[in-house]
């Protein structure tokens, strides 16, 4: 099952995604894409680690080239998050560009049982961007659309609650996913 989770800053999208993947079974892998540069990134990493503590995730820290990750076919994978991955591939030394980010995510799709991708709602704060920002936003939007098109479930998380943007019709019957009133805490 492929799931795309989106939401703004502090919307509760990570907690939702973690709970969703926890409900999918074991083994669970957490692909952490954030590069630990600067105090804010490190604080964010610490916060996310404590959020998923005790949820049984095996953490794989990989900021580039997701196609290189070895996964068992029965893996339930949480990729957090798409915008970091894309920024790393586009702007970090050693990055393979937007194409590498896309290739990395698509390669994961075919190699695990469930993949949940967390992305970011960064498209409603303005429309006048230039240069690198514009290029990044366009690529991220394309990737969101590419994943959403293939996904079984697309969820926007709003203040910790779910706004289902798309759900395959028989989805609720064949997984433990409870829409709308899912309790997160």
């Amino acid at each position, binding site marked *: 099952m492929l799931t795309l989770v989106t939401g703004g800053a*502090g919307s509760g999208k990570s907690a939702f995604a973690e709970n969703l993947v926890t409900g999918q079974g074991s083994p669970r892998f957490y692909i952490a894409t954030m590069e630990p540069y600067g105090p804010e990134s490190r604080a964010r990493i610490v916060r996310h680690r404590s959020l998923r503590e005790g949820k049984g995730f095996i953490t794989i820290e990989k900021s580039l080239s997701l196609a290189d990750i070895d996964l068992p076919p029965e893996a339930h994978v949480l990729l957090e998050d798409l915008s970091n991955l894309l920024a790393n591939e586009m702007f970090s030394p050693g990055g393979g560009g937007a194409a590498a980010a896309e290739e990395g995510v698509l390669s994961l799709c075919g190699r695990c049982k469930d993949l949940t991708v967390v992305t*970011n709602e960064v*498209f409603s*704060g303005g429309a006048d961007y230039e240069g690198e920002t514009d290029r990044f936003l366009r690529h991220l939007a394309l990737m969101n659309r590419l994943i959403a098109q293939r996904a079984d479930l697309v969820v926007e998380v709003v*203040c910790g*609650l779910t706004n289902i943007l798309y759900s395959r019709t028989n989805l609720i019957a064949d997984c433990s996913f409870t829409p*709308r009133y899912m309790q997160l805490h």
Partner: protein
Amino acid sequence: MIFITGPLFSGKKSYIKKALGLSDEELRVWAVWDVQEMAGKEDAAHLAESLCQVPIVIATEVGGGVVPTDPHVRRAREEAGRLSCLLAEKADTVVRVCCGLPQLLKGEWPCKEKRPDFPDERRTRC
């Protein structure tokens, strides 16, 4: 508590006034809005707890859009988001309003017949 959220100028107050049949004056007594601006100034759990005493709590969604370069603005957005998560968790009803259109995220649709309790201390004030 009824929690109303949605983007800036999306019609959050207009919606709840219409749904519950409230005048502007009544809204001022029943509701508190722009609570996203209160986030980060005190402990989020404590703030959410005290806001829960108000029948209608309204927050503007500020976490969308490109991540700001200013770290203070960045933190304020996140704190506002986390406050909204806490409020939504405590609320009986959560409605998100976009372009004036309400979307029920939790509980039951607010209606005149099921108005929340009017707190006594607020009644004496108005």
